[in-house]
């Protein structure tokens, strides 16, 4: 009798086939400037959305080329009342990871939570015009604005919808650093929370009820690396399947077991001037700096051609008008402009930056030499983010070298260039105060017509190019490396990560 049992058991084992190994993709998704390691609160995060997108979802998303916004949780939407009323229809049968259904109540809850100052969310600035959120049905959401906001859809591309059933139980003030975000959070994304080992990795597992189909892989792991070199090494030795790469890193990854992905960073680098400092009030000085720097050579040599010259803060072709001053390298002109503006050549100006990577160091050292040749002495100063924030929040600085996200919607530059947002009210750290520029940003946000908007931002580009509130330099490409073992993997750089549909449910391993 037992012999029969044994044989039948064996037969079962043989006939059912070998157990399928778990399909895992491991990557350093929070590596690099777009990442936010170990920060899991989508309301207060300003980066790390690539990872957050894997288990939370947004109403709308860009495509991978950032050309068009399509619905994700929203199946469709209409804009009415001159851009003041947005009606979203939600996709049917979307389930939270705990099995309950997503309803319009969750959307209303999320937006109101963002606007609640207690939650400390940066989205409050973007939803400032929202006067009410209505839920006429379980799948319809109506957002009413006091003024049209053409950039609302753009803002919604990284606004994660949160479960009202769970989060309404937690007071908003405690939500900011609540343990909920890192112990079994509930989302609607392709993957769901599995395990978090602090300082080491986060693991997600496939969401079988995902509305676009169950993911092909079983687990997705995000490992944390303190050293970029260690992440690159882990990629090359096959320990991980994906990481962010710096320009230099691409040289060592080339031709190995990984492929290099690249894309526009949508970040524009600029030299900023403390415009409340009398030394820099004369536009000729800012012009001189532009003429003194051989940007074309820097782009060609230091960036290996992987950057584009930028002549105004927006670098999307459609917003650049004809007739911009290209400020081509002209050291003689720079010298004469400095002399005309009576620049004191014995002055030594400090250029502060929060960048610490080798490329930025090389760029600053090169700029230092170029400016010296034109008669302006500068010294680079490398600081960390808190120091940068504090110093630029005040008045005790001269110049900075920084980068700012300028896309996909140019409205994202508003808080950094409008005089209403001079610190402590916002991030206009260079204290730009140009009434005409203010007006352009305001109208740009309120105009619904696409063609009119394009014209407005073209005007803004021209104004910035002439009056030089910033000395805009270039916009560079950013890179990632992915193991050749992966199939259907999609990634493109974005200033804060995420915001585009990377079809994570289709990712697969050979």
């Amino acid at each position, binding site marked *: 009798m037992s012999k029969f049992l044994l044989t039948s058991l064996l037969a079962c084992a043989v006939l059912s086939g070998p157990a399928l190994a778990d399909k895992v993709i491991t990557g350093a998704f929070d590596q690099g400037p777009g990442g936010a390691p170990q920060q899991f609160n989508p309301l207060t995060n300003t980066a790390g959305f690539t990872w957050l997108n894997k288990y939370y979802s947004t109403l709308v998303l860009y495509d991978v080329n950032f050309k068009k916004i399509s619905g994700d949780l929203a199946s469709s939407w209409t804009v009415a009342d001159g851009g003041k009323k947005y009606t979203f229809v939600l996709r049917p049968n979307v389930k939270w990871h705990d099995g309950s259904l997503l309803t319009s109540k969750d959307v209303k809850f999320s937006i109101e939570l963002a606007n609640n100052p207690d939650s400390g969310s940066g989205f409050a600035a973007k939803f400032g015009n929202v006067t009410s959120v209505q839920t006429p049905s379980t799948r319809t959401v109506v957002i009413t604005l006091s003024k049209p906001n053409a950039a609302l859809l753009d803002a919604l591309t990284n606004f994660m919808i949160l479960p009202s059933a769970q989060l309404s139980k937690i007071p908003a003030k405690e939500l900011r650093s609540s343990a909920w975000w890192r112990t079994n959070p509930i989302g609607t994304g392709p993957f769901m929370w599995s395990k978090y080992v602090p300082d080491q990795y986060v693991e997600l597992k496939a969401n079988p009820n995902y509305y676009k189909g169950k993911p092909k892989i079983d687990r997705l792991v995000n490992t944390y690396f303190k*050293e*970029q*070199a260690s992440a*690159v*090494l882990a990629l*090359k030795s096959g320990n991980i399947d994906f990481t962010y790469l*710096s320009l*230099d*890193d691409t*040289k*060592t990854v080339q031709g190995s077991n990984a492929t290099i992905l690249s894309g526009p960073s949508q970040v524009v680098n600029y030299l900023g001037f403390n415009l409340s400092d009398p030394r820099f009030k004369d536009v000729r000085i800012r012009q001189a700096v532009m003429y003194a720097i051989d940007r074309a*050579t*820097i782009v060609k*040599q*230091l960036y290996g051609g992987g950057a584009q010259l930028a002549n105004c803060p927006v670098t999307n072709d459609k917003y650049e008008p004809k007739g911009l001053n290209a400020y081509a390298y002209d050291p003689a002109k720079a010298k004469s402009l400095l002399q005309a503006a009576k620049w004191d050549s014995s002055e030594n100006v400090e250029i502060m930056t929060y960048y*610490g990577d*080798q490329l930025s*160091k*090389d760029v*600053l*050292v*090169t700029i*230092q*030499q170029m400016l010296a040749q034109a008669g302006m002495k500068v010294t*680079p*100063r*490398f600081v*960390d983010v808190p*120091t940068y924030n504090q110093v630029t929040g005040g008045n005790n600085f001269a110049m900075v070298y920084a980068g700012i996200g300028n896309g996909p919607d140019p409205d994202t530059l508003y808080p950094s260039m409008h005089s209403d947002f001079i610190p402590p009210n916002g991030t206009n750290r260079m204290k730009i105060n140009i009434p005409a520029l203010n007006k352009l940003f305001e109208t740009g946000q309120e105009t619904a017509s696409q063609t009119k908007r394009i014209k407005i931002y073209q005007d803004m580009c021209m104004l910035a190019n002439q009056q030089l509130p910033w000395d805009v330099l270039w916009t560079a490409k950013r890179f990632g490396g992915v193991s050749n073992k992966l199939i259907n993997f999609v990634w493109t750089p974005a200033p804060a990560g995420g915001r585009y549909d990377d079809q994570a449910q289709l990712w697969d391993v050979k």
Partner: protein
Amino acid sequence: MTALTAAPVRPRTPTRMALKRFLRHRLAVVGLALLAVIILLSIFGPLIARFEPDQIDLLSRSQPPSSVHWFGTDQTGRDVFARTLIAGRVSLMVGILSTFISLVVGTVLGALAGYFGGWVDNVIMRFVDVVMTFPSIIVLLTLAAIVGPGVDKTIIIIGLLGWPLACRLVRAKLLSVRELDFIAAANALGATDRRVLLKHALPNVIDVLVVFVSLGVASGILTEAGLSFLGLGVQPPQASWGNLLTGARELTVLEAYPWQWMPAGALIVLTVLATNFLGDGLRDALDPKARQ
């Protein structure tokens, strides 16, 4: 006919004997010579180099060693040979001066604590505890953030963080020496505390201090390298061996452009080797009981 006076004999002073012992120690002589070469190169090298250490040449980036650029070029086309040598000035200064500060402060305090004991010892050792307890990293980071990075500040900070070890070594030595018989004998014969301390106890401490100095200079240079790794210490575009070595932090540079960081690394190693050999030789030479 015998000469009435013998041929003049050179007197065998302790110093001469020490020198003789030192010269017999081959490695020490090598160390001294090596150190001298490195110091001379650092002082005069940048003058004989063909290029200015800060001269950028974007068209000659990251070139391997050649007859034009003897150590190749770095990521902005600067001559690595010139930069490495001028970096030596900075690193050596940091190592030597910071150790000097540690040595002076530590010896004085350690001698006082070790010899007098009692409450003097207690107070000083608690002070040692406070300084040693300060994790050097937080003090370095905080002070550098407040006063700004730079060579002089780095020297002072490293020096002020290194004296406790000297103090403890001197004190420990003195604690045991204090009990030795010849000190008791000297006291019995009426010699005052200070004379006894200086004449008898201190010389016994020198061998430990010599080792401390040789390791201290090395440690100073290495701490500077570590600070550069954290983004402090000597800032670009000024060069130090530490911040030249930090270039290896990028895998590409580590693997494909070794000429950019290996010379600085090699010089750190050679300098440390030289100071250590030198220290060895000095200890052997100064210790009256040492045998060859």
